[in-house]
C-alpha cells in the first residue's frame, strides 16, 4: 500500500516537473515575441476595442442582422438607389404601359382576358378611358371654365369621337349601326 502511494507521489512530482518546465518554456517563448508581432497584437486589440465604444442601437442591430452597415446608407447612396429604381421602372414598366400601340395590340389579339396580369388590364382601361365621357365629365367638373368654353370643349370632344368612329368603321357601317340601334331602342 505504501509503495503504491510512493509511486503515485513520484508520478505526480514528475508530472508537475514536466508541467512546470513546459510552462517556463512557454513563458520564455512569449517574452521573446518579436516587436513586430507585439505591435500587430496591440493593433488587433485596438481594433477589437473599437467595437465596444460604438453603442448598439436597435437600427444598428437590424442592419447587422441583415448583414448591412448604416454607413451604406449615406445621402449619395439613397439618391443613387432612387435613381436606379426609377430607371428600373422605366426600363421594365415604361415600354409596356406607355406604349398604347402595344396595349391595343394585346387587347385586339383577344378579349380583355388576353391580359394575364390584372394590373395590365386596369392600366389599359385607364388609358382607353382617356377619351370617354367619364373623363371629360370629371375634367369639366374640376376645371374652372365658363359655360361657353365648356360647350366648346364638349363639341370638340364629340367631333373627335365622331372622327374616330368614322375612320374605324366607315361612314355607311356607322350609320347602319346607329339606325339599328335606334330601331332596337
Amino acid at each position, binding site marked *: 500500500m505504501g509503495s503504491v502511494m510512493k509511486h503515485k507521489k513520484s508520478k505526480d512530482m514528475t*508530472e508537475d516537473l514536466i508541467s512546470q518546465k513546459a*510552462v517556463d518554456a512557454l513563458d520564455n*517563448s512569449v517574452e521573446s515575441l518579436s516587436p513586430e508581432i507585439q505591435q500587430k497584437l496591440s493593433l488587433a486589440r485596438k481594433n477589437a476595442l473599437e467595437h465596444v465604444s460604438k453603442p448598439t442601437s436597435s437600427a444598428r442591430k437590424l442592419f447587422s442582422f441583415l448583414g448591412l452597415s448604416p454607413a451604406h446608407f449615406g445621402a449619395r447612396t439613397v439618391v443613387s438607389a432612387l435613381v436606379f429604381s426609377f430607371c428600373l421602372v422605366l426600363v421594365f414598366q415604361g415600354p409596356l404601359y406607355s406604349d398604347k400601340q402595344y396595349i391595343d395590340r394585346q387587347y385586339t389579339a383577344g378579349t380583355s382576358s388576353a391580359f394575364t396580369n390584372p394590373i395590365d388590364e386596369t392600366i389599359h382601361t385607364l388609358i382607353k378611358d382617356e377619351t370617354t365621357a367619364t373623363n371629360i365629365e370629371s375634367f369639366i367638373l374640376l376645371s374652372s371654365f365658363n359655360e361657353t368654353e365648356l360647350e366648346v370643349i364638349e363639341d370638340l370632344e364629340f367631333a373627335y369621337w365622331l372622327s374616330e368612329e368614322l375612320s374605324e368603321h366607315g361612314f355607311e357601317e356607322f350609320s347602319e349601326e346607329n339606325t339599328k340601334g335606334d330601331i332596337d331602342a
Partner: protein
Amino acid sequence: MREVKTIQIDDFLKEIEKRAFRMAQMATLCEADALDIVQEAMIKLVTKYGERDSGEWRPLFFKILENRILDWHRKQQVMKKLFFWRKPNLEIGTQDENEIEQVDHHGDGESQLISEQLGERLLESIVSLPLKQQQCFILRSWEGLSIKETAAAMNINENSVKTHYARAIEKLKIQQQIIENA
C-alpha cells in the same frame, strides 16, 4: 460606465494577447493565421460578451479561441482535400530554428544556453502533440483553467479533459527523457 468597461477589457486583452497568440501559433503553425484568429476572438469577446462580468471573460475568451482554432483546422482539412498536390506551409518550424540560432548567439552562459535549448525542444514537443492534447495541456497548465473550465472551453466532457491531459503529460515526459539523454 462604458469607459470603465473599455479599460477593463483593454487590460484583460493586453494581459492575454501574447499567450493567446502563442497558443494559436502552436496550433496552426502559421503566424498570420494565428494573428487573425486572435483578432477574431478579441472582436467576438468584445462585441458579444463585453458587457458581462470581467470574471467570465477568461473562460469565454479561450472558448472562442478554441472554436476559432478548430474552425481553422476544419478549413485546412477541406483545403488539403481540395488542393492535395500542395505542400503544407510550416512557418513555425523555420521560425523555431531561427530562434534556436538566436539563442546560440545571445546566450550568456553554457548552462543557460542548454536550459534554453531544452526549453525550445520542449516547445517543439508541445507543438508535435495532437491538437486536443496540446490545447488541453496549454489550457490546464499554462492558463491554469480548471478541468470544468477546460471542458467548457474545448466543448468536451471533463473525463476527456483528464484523458487528454494525462496523455499529453505522458508524451512530453517521453520526449523530455529523449532530449535529456541526447
